């Protein structure tokens, strides 16, 4: 297993800085990327996925992104997009099979290997009953699992999640993150997730990066990043941290008193 490194990664939009960041992550770690809207979280994930032109370097192990083909990079880094496109009429199994694109043989037939990996991941994510159901006839939580399954069959060692829970209710948010954590442990995956829910980020991630206006405001472990002072300054709203004996840090914004 190999670590993920990014150095001098920079994205400019004309003169405006959209992202500038450095860092590395040991394999098997979970990095939460935090920050207000427009901070550059999605841009960062797209840079890691090789979908956005950027300065600097990204490496997984000794493979450089710049010298990898699209398929080579897709076999190392997989992305679960925030709002995946849902092609009408496509079945869950066919959708998951798209994750094998980077392993296509030259005449394009799906081999026994492709099928068995798709079947294995579909079973692991409890999608077997839905495999031949069209995507437009499953729920949001099921779609999230199908998209995760599609990322897992790529056999990439780095899994990028762009706000994986934003479309889900409370129970499904927890379920998806637990699922990601389970496959991370089972497969030794490195996870990089852009997250909005700071409490859940503190629960699941062991490394955190807080971005604001494209720059890193704080990076490190839970104690370095999830402090009331740092978060309040970055989000521009008073943020309180409660310590629950069972659940750890509960992070919540404090409403302003009504104006008199």
């Amino acid at each position: 297993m190999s670590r993920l490194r990014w150095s001098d990664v920079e994205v400019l939009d004309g003169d405006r800085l959209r992202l500038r960041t450095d860092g590395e992550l040991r394999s098997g770690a979970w990095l939460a990327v935090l920050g207000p809207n427009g901070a550059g979280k999605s841009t960062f994930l797209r840079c890691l996925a090789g979908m956005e032109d950027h300065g600097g370097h990204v490496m997984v192990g000794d493979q450089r992104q710049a010298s990898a083909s699209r398929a080579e990079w897709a076999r190392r880094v997989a992305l679960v997009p925030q709002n995946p496109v849902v092609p009408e009429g496509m079945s869950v199994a066919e959708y998951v099979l798209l994750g094998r694109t980077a392993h296509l043989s030259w005449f394009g037939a799906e081999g026994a290997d492709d099928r068995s990996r798709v079947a294995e991941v579909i079973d692991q994510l409890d999608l077997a009953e839905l495999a031949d159901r069209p995507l437009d006839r499953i729920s949001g939580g099921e779609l999230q699992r199908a998209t995760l399954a599609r990322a897992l069959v790529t056999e990439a060692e780095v899994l990028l999640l762009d706000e994986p829970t934003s479309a889900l209710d409370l129970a499904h948010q927890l379920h998806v993150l637990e699922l990601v954590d389970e496959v991370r442990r089972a497969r030794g995956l490195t996870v990089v997730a852009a997250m909005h829910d700071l409490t859940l980020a503190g629960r699941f991630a062991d490394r955190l990066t807080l971005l604001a206006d494209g720059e890193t405001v704080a990076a490190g472990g839970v104690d370095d990043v999830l402090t009331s002072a740092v978060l309040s300054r970055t989000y521009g709203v008073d943020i309180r941290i409660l310590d629950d004996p069972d659940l750890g840090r509960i992070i919540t914004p404090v409403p302003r008193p009504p104006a008199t």
Partner: protein
Amino acid sequence: MTTGPATSSVPPPADAGVGADRLGSVARAFRIPAVSWLVAAVALFVVVVASLAVGAVDLPARGVFLGLLDALPLVEVDSGLDERQQVILEQWRLPRVMLAGLVGASLSWSGAAYQGVFRNPLADPFLLGVGAGAGLGATVVVVFGLDVGWGPISSIPLGAFIGALAAAFLAFSVGRAAGGGAGALLLAGVAAAAFFTAIQTFLQQRNTDVLRIVYSWIQGSLGTAGWSEVRLLLPYTVVAGAVIVAHRRHLDVLRVGEAEARSLGADPARIRVTLVIVASLLTAAAVSVSGLISFVGLVVPHVIRLTVGSSYRVIVPLAGVVGATFLIGADLVARTVLAPAELPIGVVTAFVGAPFFGFILHRSRRTIG
């Protein structure tokens, strides 16, 4: 709206069955649609034998079948056909049926490729101006009486082929210069088609005496089909068809949009360039020997999409067989209903095909595109 039972997102209890049983639906989702293939193959066989047997001189179906076997290498059977019947079968009917099949398969493959690449259900093989270009090429040859024939290739097909490639090349270069995205190519195709049609109309207005010749070519006909046309088109159909079939899963990946397709390891720009070039070449080759036969390339992929499944893994391979069957059948109708006169085959494909497609569309609850 669907009427199925409400579905629950709660995972089934752990003891609901494990292993192979629960994965049955995965296997089901990936199975080859064997019934559809069987139906398509039987339909092709029936329509081929009928087309070979029926005509100005009817041949016995049994003799046609045995004659077909006899034509295969290493097979020797006595077809029971007399010498004259043998000549009709081998020199007239067989090349015409083969050409209709090749043209039908070619247009259907092109249509499927264009629909997938442009993610547009209205895409057809003439999208990039290939039809208008071919029409202009044929018009120029007829109007100026050009004798550009070369070897076995006569003047009109060659003119049409060159015109078709010129239009596709123009559309492609303008579209590339405008960024090369699907929308840019589409609009450049519309512009190229309008431009070539304008010149073609101008030339025809100035030379009304040749209008009939040009017009009958444009409406499409396989009346002059011989082995030389088959030999001309065959390599294009085989090679381009293989390239399009090899890209069937790429076409599925494009269905999730370019950004996601890239993140999955595909190269949408390369796929688009490859398939647009290959499909345009294939269409140009097909129309140069058959004229502009409309509707086949648009509708055949949709019929498969609506009846069998929406994955290009299924659509592309089947489109070859279904397209061939459809056009062989249409040609049979075109040359028999008003015999000894012939209807333009383009009239038949639209007159018979449109109501049939309307029926499929009406019955289907699946979504197009």
